[in-house]
């Protein structure tokens, strides 16, 4: 009986491996190829037929990436913009989400509906007036300008409302009867209870803002203010002839997120599932 089970198990596995292994290889190969190319001196990148591994591996490209263009500065810019935005989004989404979830009022329902309606409106549709506004404020090419559109996230409000709704009303009523102000209820009770979803939202918001492209593209004018996305996009258009260098730039841009993923795998996957499933 057992050997029958093992054999069937292996055969079934075998079929799946047959399908999945090549796919997995194709999926991972581009990333591997990017890293391999970045380790080759420029002359090697244009060999034909191409060689898989670098004959003379070099870190010169990485050195050049940081020397020619301020990639470190790009990284710090991204960290700052994404970090501040995420903090603001968490704050506004959870506090507003609590209001919508636990304070009964027709007005609030209407306002909530308006917020939700903005989820489906793509940012690109209305970025022109926001751009003009930022310009009038004198915040063009500055951190406040980069951060401004991202201090709120309608999806975040929706997400937190759904999460907080699951908290039993009795708890909150009890706290109210005890004399707690709504602020206290929010700060001391709601937030700790929503810590899991909050961290999921934090990851979601952070990755979203980090990868946003259109807004930093139109807002930044000086190189020092580029985020990593914009920095790399412009870098590759200028140094296109140096393929190893550009590959190193791409690796440097992708690396921080990949590292974060390796370390926080579980949390990120949880974030993906929690935020991805909220709509269903």
């Amino acid at each position, binding site marked *: 009986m057992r050997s029958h089970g093992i054999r069937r198990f292996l055969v079934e*596995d075998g079929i799946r491996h047959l399908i999945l292994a090549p796919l997995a290889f194709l999926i991972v190969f581009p990333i591997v190829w990017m890293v391999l190319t970045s380790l080759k001196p420029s002359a090697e990148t244009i060999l034909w037929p191409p060689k898989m591994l670098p004959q003379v591996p070099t870190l010169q490209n990485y050195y050049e990436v940081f020397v020619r263009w301020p990639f470190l500065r790009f990284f710090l810019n991204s960290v700052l913009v994404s970090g501040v935005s995420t903090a603001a989004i968490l704050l506004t989404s959870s506090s507003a989400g609590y209001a919508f979830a636990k304070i009964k009022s027709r007005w*609030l329902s209407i306002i909530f509906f308006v917020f939700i309606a903005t989820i489906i409106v*793509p*940012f690109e*549709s209305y970025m022109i007036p926001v751009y003009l506004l930022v310009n009038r404020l004198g915040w063009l090419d500055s951190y406040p300008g980069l951060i401004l559109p991202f201090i709120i996230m309608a999806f975040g409000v929706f997400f937190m409302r759904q999460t907080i709704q699951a908290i039993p009303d009795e708890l909150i009523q009890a706290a109210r009867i005890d004399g707690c102000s709504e602020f206290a209820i929010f700060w001391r009770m709601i937030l700790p209870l929503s810590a899991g979803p909050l961290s999921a939202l934090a990851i979601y918001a952070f990755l979203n803002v980090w990868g946003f492209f259109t807004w930093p*593209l139109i807002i930044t004018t000086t190189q020092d203010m580029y985020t990593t996305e914009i920095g790399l996009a412009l870098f590759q258009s200028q140094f296109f002839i140096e393929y190893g260098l550009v590959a190193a730039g791409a690796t440097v841009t992708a690396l921080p997120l990949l590292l974060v993923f390796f370390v926080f795998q579980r949390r990120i*996957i949880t974030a993906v599932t929690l935020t991805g499933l909220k709509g269903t």
Partner: protein
Amino acid sequence: MIAPVSPEITAHAGGWARLRSQWRWYGPQWKYCLAILGPVCLAYLVIRIIPIFDTAWMSLHNWSLVKPVKPFIGLENYVKLAGDPLFRLALYNTTLFAVVTVPVTLALAFTVAVLLDRPMQGRLENTYKFLFFLPVVPTMVPVSVVWKWIYDPSYGILNYALGFFGVPPQGWLINSSWAIWAIILMTVWKSVGYYMVLFLVGLKDIPVDYYEAASIDGATAWQRLTQITIPLMRPMLLFNVVIATIFAYNVFAQVYVMTEGPQGSPANPVRVIVMDMYENGFRFLKMGYASAEAMVLLVIVFVLTIVEFRFLRPKV
């Protein structure tokens, strides 16, 4: 002070009191709402609501950044859009992109998820899940840069690999017919892992008893798939379809990277709506015209969402 409104009071008071009880919150709640929602609503107004209306307003004017006079021209921008071959091309390209990327990504993701749902010898399924999710993590620009290199006509690895199958070197991003498909392929590659994760969670939720009952009834693996798995996953499938389509309509970053620079690919074969908007608004400075395009994009996405809500309302 907190004074719960007792049922007797609301019952006694007439319609007026009932109305007032809906308006009037408990004191501290009212303070909280004002303190929190005040600034938040203000933020929404300033950076979401008003800009949306502003865009609509600008779309009705001949609004150019470099001209001082911005006359009202009614729907003329929209009329011009309808006759603009570049915009029509952008609409076509974007729709093609969305219509192909979404089903292919979801189908592939679903297949992989189904295959990885059951455990493997040595817990290998976790390795596979990790590998498939990997492309999702980096952002779009580095991924586009890498693929631009892979697609390179002279030195790209894709041409080399295809050479073994007897395919002559192609200019994947240069050729007008292939360029959009090259970008579609790259986008599918990047997104598969994300939907795989969502589907895996959904698959896990299906009770094992259903499958067991079906097996007892004599259902084959394929029948189990089509009669149980897919119908139960339908709401999630449909939800993801529309979300993915909406994101597909906003595609821009990868097109920008591929077409930017002196060795960039020709722009028109991959011209998408946001790219056309960007060019009209931020290159030719015809912001009124670009705003009209933005409104069209908004309407398309809006309609797609309504479609979603229509189909999604669970009849189950």
